[in-house]
């Protein structure tokens, strides 16, 4: 177990290291110095030079890179180029919105995918199963931001049940915060749920035809018993393998959904920093999202091996 985890951890660190070089390189091939961009074309050369020195942008690129990495590792993320405010607390506040959003989205997705997938597999020869399968097919095609806007039209504009946008901070009201996350997480989770439902369906269909289920019934289990005792775990294996992909989809989908519902999360922060050319902030957030994607995949990989003894943690 530990050897596999250790090996994968090394790969993850190497991947993230390569990713950091890539991100740094891409964001620093910008023509013109960042200071010039920040101060605008009207700025005097003297003030541009002063800002360049203040931001450490006169140092060699390697030094700048190492300085940035040091900051990332020690969580001293420095200050924003634009507002001059420290980045860490700002990012922390944004995470308070984005992390619950992604988790709630996952919850919604699973709550849809598992029953829908199982049902459409069990009833695959009946109309109800075909309808469910078709519904998931359509669900996959609806982008989360389109669904978000449709939900706003129906639930917020027509029915006036929930706010159309904005976020009530957790510190003000936990209920309010949850309420403002309902529509976003439903829009986020519904689509991922539809994708996942198809995998659940295929997995359950596979299990239903498995020989070991017949063996279980031959020794005296009823079909339902056999499905619970043997079916669930076996069906979970292929579903878990795509869960990593689903989570990446949720994380990146959150960026767009936050824009739809004007939630002050990591995605909104990323978009505003792009608009402001606040490159250091862009750099940090892109690394943060990439890290989340890579680490999520690592966790799913480990989970997969815990469930399935055939793969084993040693290989």
């Amino acid at each position, binding site marked *: 177990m530990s050897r596999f985890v250790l090996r994968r951890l090394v790969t993850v660190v190497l*991947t*993230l290291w*390569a*990713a950091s070089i*890539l*991100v740094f390189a*891409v*964001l620093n*091939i*910008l023509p013109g110095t960042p200071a010039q961009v920040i101060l605008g074309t009207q700025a005097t050369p003297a003030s541009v030079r002063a800002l360049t020195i203040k931001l450490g942008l006169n140092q060699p690129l390697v030094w700048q890179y190492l300085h940035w990495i040091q900051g990332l590792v020690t969580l001293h993320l420095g200050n924003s180029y634009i507002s001059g405010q420290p980045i860490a607390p700002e990012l922390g506040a944004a995470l308070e919105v984005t992390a619950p959003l992604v988790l709630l989205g996952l919850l919604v997705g699973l709550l849809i995918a598992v029953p829908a997938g199982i049902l459409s597999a069990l009833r*695959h*020869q009946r109309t109800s199963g075909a309808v469910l399968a078709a519904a998931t*097919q*359509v669900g*996959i*095609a*609806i*982008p989360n*931001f*389109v669904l978000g*806007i*449709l939900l*706003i*039209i129906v639930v917020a*504009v*027509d029915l006036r049940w929930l706010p*159309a946008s904005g976020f009530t901070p957790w510190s003000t009201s936990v209920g309010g915060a949850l309420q403002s996350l309902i529509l976003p997480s439903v829009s986020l989770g519904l689509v991922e749920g539809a994708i996942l439902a198809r995998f659940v*369906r*295929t997995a359950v*269909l596979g299990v239903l*035809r498995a020989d070991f289920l017949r063996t279980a019934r031959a020794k005296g289990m009823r079909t339902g018993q056999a499905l619970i005792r043997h079916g669930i775990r076996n069906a979970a294996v292929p579903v878990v393998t795509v869960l990593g992909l689903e989570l*990446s*989809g949720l*994380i*990146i989908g959150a*960026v*767009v959904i936050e*824009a*739809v519902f004007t939630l002050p999360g990591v995605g909104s922060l*990323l*978009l505003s*920093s*792009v608009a402001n*050319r606040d*490159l250091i902030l*862009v750099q940090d957030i*892109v690394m943060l*999202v*990439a890290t989340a*994607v*890579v680490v999520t*995949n690592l966790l799913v990989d480990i989970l997969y091996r815990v469930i399935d003894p055939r793969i084993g943690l040693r290989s």
Partner: protein
Amino acid sequence: MTTLTAGRASAEVPGRAHRLWRLARRNPSALLGGLVVLVIVVVAVVAVFWTPYGPLAVFPGQALLGPGPHHLLGTDQYGRDLLSRLMSGADPTLLSSAGAVLIAGGIGIPAGLLSASRGGMVSELIMRLADLIYSFPALLAAITLVAVFGASTITATVAIGIASIPAFARVTRSASLTVLGTDYVLAARAYGRSPLAILRRHVVPNILPFIIVQSSLLLSVTVLAVAALSYLGLGTPPPAATWGGMLENAQNYLYQDPLMAVWPGLAIALCVLGFNALGDGLRDLLDPTLRPRE
């Protein structure tokens, strides 16, 4: 059961229409997807030459009209005809997503072939690079590039294309490895055919179906990414009509004219559905073993 259908089929000589009907019944997904894609492509081509009004033409007196006889789908806040904008929005969407798939295929397919045929360090390096790119989802890559180069159709296309390279590289690699492991390739090697000739004669024709399927499926993903980028204002810049941009704009008028948001949303969903269904259907047609058995 297969023998029975085959037996019945050989009893009659089916006409073309009949054959199409049979194909459609066997695989409604491919037919439906193909039809939707065809319609969207036709609209995109027509929109280059003709739209009911100019997509950028402003009619200040006719702002925010609902659907009506003069403007079938209504107008936006500047009085621009929504149908015309919807039609001409198909162009950047299709061009951008197709461009991204071309970039991804142009790099990913050779990389996958190389990795499969060379093995060893080269293969390892290519797949590690694919893993690296994989940790940047298309949208994240696009946002990063836009931060540097500014929002434009080309930036969006290139970014999504690069992010999609691993999808092609992996499919190409695994399909090629399967072909390279077959007995006929072994035989070809045994009588001294060069590796390049083996790739050309045996591998490429055999993996083509996989690549076609992957292209179609990937198109549904890139359409989505392109639409999302233009919705976020990071794609083709206004005032050019884009589906995502129209959606973003319509969101400001949800209380006055909610239908305005429905049209571009529908267009995006249909386009994604079309490519997705086409890819799924083609996969079933080209490789029955991949089909989840019913």
